[in-house]
């Protein structure tokens, strides 16, 4: 018994020692996720980016998943800061204020908050211009719909989601002015059965193309069962609905996360708002399915090229809201601030923003 105990104690000491060694040497990066990593959703996309960092020499990553946006967020971020993490990425809107509080206490740590708008001396925020990819997928939807009703299963009426819906609708209208986009709010980011029911109700009012701002592929499956088309989000969802999946608006966080780590390593990182677009590959569209005619593919890819070069802007005036009031004047382009706080629907969207 004594022997076992002493072996255990030695092991414990060794482990502690090695743990201490590793922490001193490695460049540690922490991630905070709001949901389980899951299969194809928001946290999964970020986790792919995290895994890319693990391949960088000397970089070691950690994460905590399913962290509620309440008191737990501050503790999780704080604990990472206290352990000497060099960079902490918090990937949900509700982490903004908790992160800001921690950032003030740890001036040497770099804090990066996703999808918010606040910054501090050592805290930046970041996001991707997903609306550009949404616009392109909207073009595909507009070209493929026959009923001219396109369904959008959406989680919560917040600017990020509304911006995506608007960009999608503008994409639809750019190729098919007659089509309308109908929005159903599920009031959940992730609940496969509820998402499916919402998707079905859209199919039943005549939608023949569906898209989603949700974390499960239930919408894709609903479309396939009904013989309709679908457009994925977060990641390429074609394996869930190969017959329905036209294209997906996808995240690719790896280049961004690598860039931030490199900047911090070099000491050239700046605390600002990083809002990368399709030109840097942080957002993209997946390969289009075989049911999309070549002419449509060409047109979408041409538009993608124009978005990358900056020739095409998604929110370029004139843009009117649902009532027909001009929101973005002719010849103007919406500012980032306007986009960040967007709470109105463009004309042609059916649904309420509450």
């Amino acid at each position, binding site marked *: 018994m004594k022997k076992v105990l002493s072996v255990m104690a030695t092991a414990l000491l060794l482990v502690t020692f090695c743990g201490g060694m590793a922490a001193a040497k490695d460049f540690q990066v922490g991630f905070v996720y709001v949901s389980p990593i899951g299969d194809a959703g928001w946290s999964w996309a970020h986790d792919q980016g995290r895994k890319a960092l693990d391949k960088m020499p000397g970089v070691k990553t950690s994460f905590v998943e399913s962290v509620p946006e309440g008191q737990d967020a501050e503790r999780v971020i704080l604990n990472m800061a206290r352990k000497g993490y060099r960079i902490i990425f918090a990937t949900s809107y509700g982490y903004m204020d908790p992160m800001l509080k921690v950032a003030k206490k740890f001036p040497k740590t770099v804090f990066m908050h996703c999808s918010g708008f606040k910054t501090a001396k050592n805290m930046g925020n970041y996001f991707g211009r997903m609306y550009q990819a949404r616009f392109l997928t909207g073009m595909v939807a507009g070209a493929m719909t026959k009923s001219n009703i396109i369904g959008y299963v959406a989680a919560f009426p917040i600017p990020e989601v509304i911006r995506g819906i608007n960009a999608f609708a503008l994409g639809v209208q750019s190729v098919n002015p007659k089509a309308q986009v109908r*929005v159903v*709010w599920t009031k959940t980011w992730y609940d496969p059965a509820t998402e*499916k029911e919402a998707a079905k109700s*859209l199919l039943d*009012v005549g939608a023949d193309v569906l898209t989603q701002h949700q974390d499960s592929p239930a919408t894709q499956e609903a479309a396939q069962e009904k013989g309709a088309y679908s457009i994925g989000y977060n990641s390429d969802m074609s394996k869930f609905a190969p017959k329905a999946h036209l294209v997906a608006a996808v995240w690719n966080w790896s280049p961004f996360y690598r860039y931030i780590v490199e900047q911090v390593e070099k000491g050239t990182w700046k605390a600002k708002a990083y809002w990368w677009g399709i030109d840097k590959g942080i957002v993209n569209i997946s390969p289009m399915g075989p049911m999309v005619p070549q002419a449509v593919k060409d047109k979408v890819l041409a538009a993608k090229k124009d978005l990358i070069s900056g020739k095409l802007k998604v929110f370029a005036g004139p843009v009117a809201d649902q009532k027909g009031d001009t929101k973005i004047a002719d010849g103007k382009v919406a500012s980032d601030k306007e986009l960040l706080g967007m709470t109105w629907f463009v004309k042609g969207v059916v649904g309420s923003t509450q």
Partner: protein
Amino acid sequence: MDDLIFILAITLKSSIPVLLASLGEIITERSGILNLGVEGMMLVGALAGFVVGQQSGSLLLGFGGAMAAGMLLALVHAFFCIHLRASQVISGLAVTILATGLSSFLGRPFIGRVGIHLGSLPVGPLAEVPLVGPVLAQQNWLCLAALALVPLTAWALAGSWPGLSIRAVGEDPEAADAAGVPVAPIRYACTLFGGLLAGLGGAYLSLVYTPGWKEGMTGGQGWIAIAMVIFATWRPGRALLGALLFGGLTALQFYFQATGAELVPAWILRLLPYLLTVGILFLVTVLKRTRFGAAPAALGQPFFRG
């Protein structure tokens, strides 16, 4: 009219998990055991159904695995409630917590895998029949089996001798015991049956409705099923009605949004099922011993020979 049919068809298909789980819970509660582990049993059923189905390629084995998994958890609950005389509320909660953790933990390697799933019924020419046709065409054989279970359980509870023994055990175990009815075995059987149906309801999600394994994919339907039992006043027929009403209100809320004609704000429609359940429970309790049913008298109470 077409819209109504659509709503009915959606509702029927989406209500099956709640219906199955609440039918099982009715039987369990009728024998005097309160099972708050339904949510956990559904989750484990969903995982087991998917995994077995995917590995074996057989839907039947998948559903069988789900039922076995649900029963296994129910066995734990039954053992604690019947033999260890534990608090049924705590035991049920513990089973749900444990099963939620285990399913997410064991299910990790299966996330995002594409497995098998059960398709809709080949209704053929029946699809042309007005009203019934379009509704039927969206269903599958498990839907029909679940619907068939409703009159079956109702009949079993009302008329057959096992039903009588179950009710005797749930109403007055001392008297039943004195009359030679085996109280503990009947309670075990009823709890296991409840677990079996909860597991099947879970597998309905992972093999039929939203194929694939997703963490926490039941989204609280197990809790709704428990409420539905009260709503139904422990009668299978009313459980069907309740499940349809509950599903119908959700479908209606989305339907209003999808048509852009929001007659009632969505948040009020979301509240309604819960308030209705409380209202019905109130009516049932106040009007008990008249035409409505009442709770089994010995529900939640352990029984042991003195």
